[in-house]
């Protein structure tokens, strides 16, 4: 791993898409995980970030928070028809057994041609899910059902 240059990498999985995302902070690892997931579905570099969604979620542990974060983005993608290109996680905080994420996701209405629609991600799984501190910073690992 060429950390910290490497933001995320895809791992081999027969039926689904699996990736690791890295960051100097957990916030940054969460941001990169969102980019990794959206690059399975679209080409995020083609997205103009005209519109910003504020996202605030709470969960009983960091794994659940990661699943909730990515699931929320999938929900907005499908229901509001927004392709996201940029993610900013302001903070991930823990108070007792409650984790909270405050974040922004920016994008625009999905354009099937422009955004080079690719594999549809159905959902975020708990399979081999990881959100942990590593010597170089933080790493999250996610498998999404495609």
């Amino acid at each position: 791993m060429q950390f910290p240059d490497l933001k995320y990498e895809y791992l081999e999985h027969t039926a689904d898409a699996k990736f690791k995302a890295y960051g100097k902070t957990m916030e940054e690892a969460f941001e990169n995980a969102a980019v990794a997931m959206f690059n399975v579905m679209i080409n995020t570099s083609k997205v103009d970030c005209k519109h910003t969604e504020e996202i605030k979620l709470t969960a009983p542990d960091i794994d659940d928070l990661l699943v909730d974060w990515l699931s929320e983005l999938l929900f907005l993608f499908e229901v509001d028809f927004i392709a996201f290109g940029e993610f900013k996680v302001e903070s991930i905080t823990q108070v007792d057994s409650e984790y909270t994420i405050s974040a922004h996701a920016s994008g625009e209405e999905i354009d099937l041609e422009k955004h080079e629609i690719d594999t549809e991600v159905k959902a975020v799984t708990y399979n081999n899910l990881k959100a942990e501190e590593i010597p170089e910073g933080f790493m999250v690992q996610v498998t999404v059902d495609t």
Partner: protein
Amino acid sequence: MEDAGNIKESLKRIDDNIWEIPIGSKPGMNVPGRIYLSDKLIHDLEPEALDQVANVAMLPGIQKYSMAMPDAHLGYGFPIGGVAAFDEEEGVISPGGVGFDINCGVRLIRSNLTVEDVRPVMKELTDKLFQAVPAGVGSKSRIRASESELDDIFLHGSRWAVENGYGVEADLEHCEGGGCIKGGDTRHISAKARKRGRPQAGTLGSGNHFLEAQYIDKIYDQEVADNFGLEEGQVTFMIHCGSRGTGHQICTDHLRTISQAAKKYKIALPDKQLACAPAQSDEAQNYFRSMICAANYAWNNRQIITHWTREIISEVFRSDIDELGLDLVYDVAHNVAKLEEHNVDGKKKNVYVHRKGATRAFPPGHKDVPQAYRDVGQPVLIPGSMGTASFVLHGAEASMDISFGSACHGAGRVMSRAHAKKEFYGEDIKSELEKSGIIVRAAHPSMIAEEAPSVYKSSSDVVNVVHDLGIARKVARMMPLGVVKG
């Protein structure tokens, strides 16, 4: 998953097509694993998929074996092709044993058309089907279900479609469970799941889902084929899709609750995606009743698509639906959990059978097989991958003895989607298929590369194992003519 290396060595051969993972191959297994594979297919199986079979064997109250069908491959918790039954009282219910695409399934429509009738108009027919049936990422239906209509769909499945003019009464008879599981409860379905469900009733979706025109090129069992209304040279239509966003959301929401419940009930989980709760707990029952709603949504979805498919065929051939004989042969679910009666150690008992990429295959005489097919067993529909053969089988006796009334559900992937896209270009595959007489229309060209024929095992190898085991026996083989993909 990292510790999966050695499990292949513990595999014991029981019979030609039966392999066992003995108890103790991984600590905590309650029952052995049973994998139904030929010599040829065993080489394609990833060790990680065996590991997943062993993990499922650790869940409380599992009966007989943790099973994998011949199309088994690596999943995200349960293996794809996994079958597991849990005691009604002592066992568990696990959303991961059903998957996100609740009641993903397949249906087959027959016709009085022959391959000679259809081949000359195949381009027009495929184009028109592609226009009529919304497919691809974010596709929305022409139907906007109101909140109360959505409730009806959740509780009554295909009946909603039939009562609203999208089909006929016979469609319900020729469908697993009559196109509805009773006992659904909408109170534990989130606002998000409802929001995703309203605009998608009557959409194909993406991924491996398809609508295909096919023709029967081979009959293996004339008597059963006659019973199903099938003959050589006949054109059939196959629809493969599921419960769309609403099913994904229901699974996502309940996985969260169930994973908290697993902690509460102190169930040790080898993988968090295997989260489960005691079958009779509120958490498990709330999931189960919501899952039923998603399953019903999926049957209704396939029924609406059936109606639009019939309309287009009728338009292209300038003939009415009855004259064209566009009858539903059958519809099967391949991602679902059901409470069924099975014989375990000589005793009849109710078990929650989880089928994650496996098709029900009830034999002749079973009370849940529609009257019209009861003498021969239920039709078992096995879709091929794009450009390859699909099969109709009929449920047979051994299914009740060795697989909780289940068979395979498809060909089974051998190559990842990402790898496939590096290997193939969608346009190349499309023109190759066109050269061999198969028209493909896809919402996204990259989808064609991901679903290229060679990313799957051969469907005939998989079907032969099921046939030889006597779980289900071959009736007919269909070859593709035109495919609409997401």
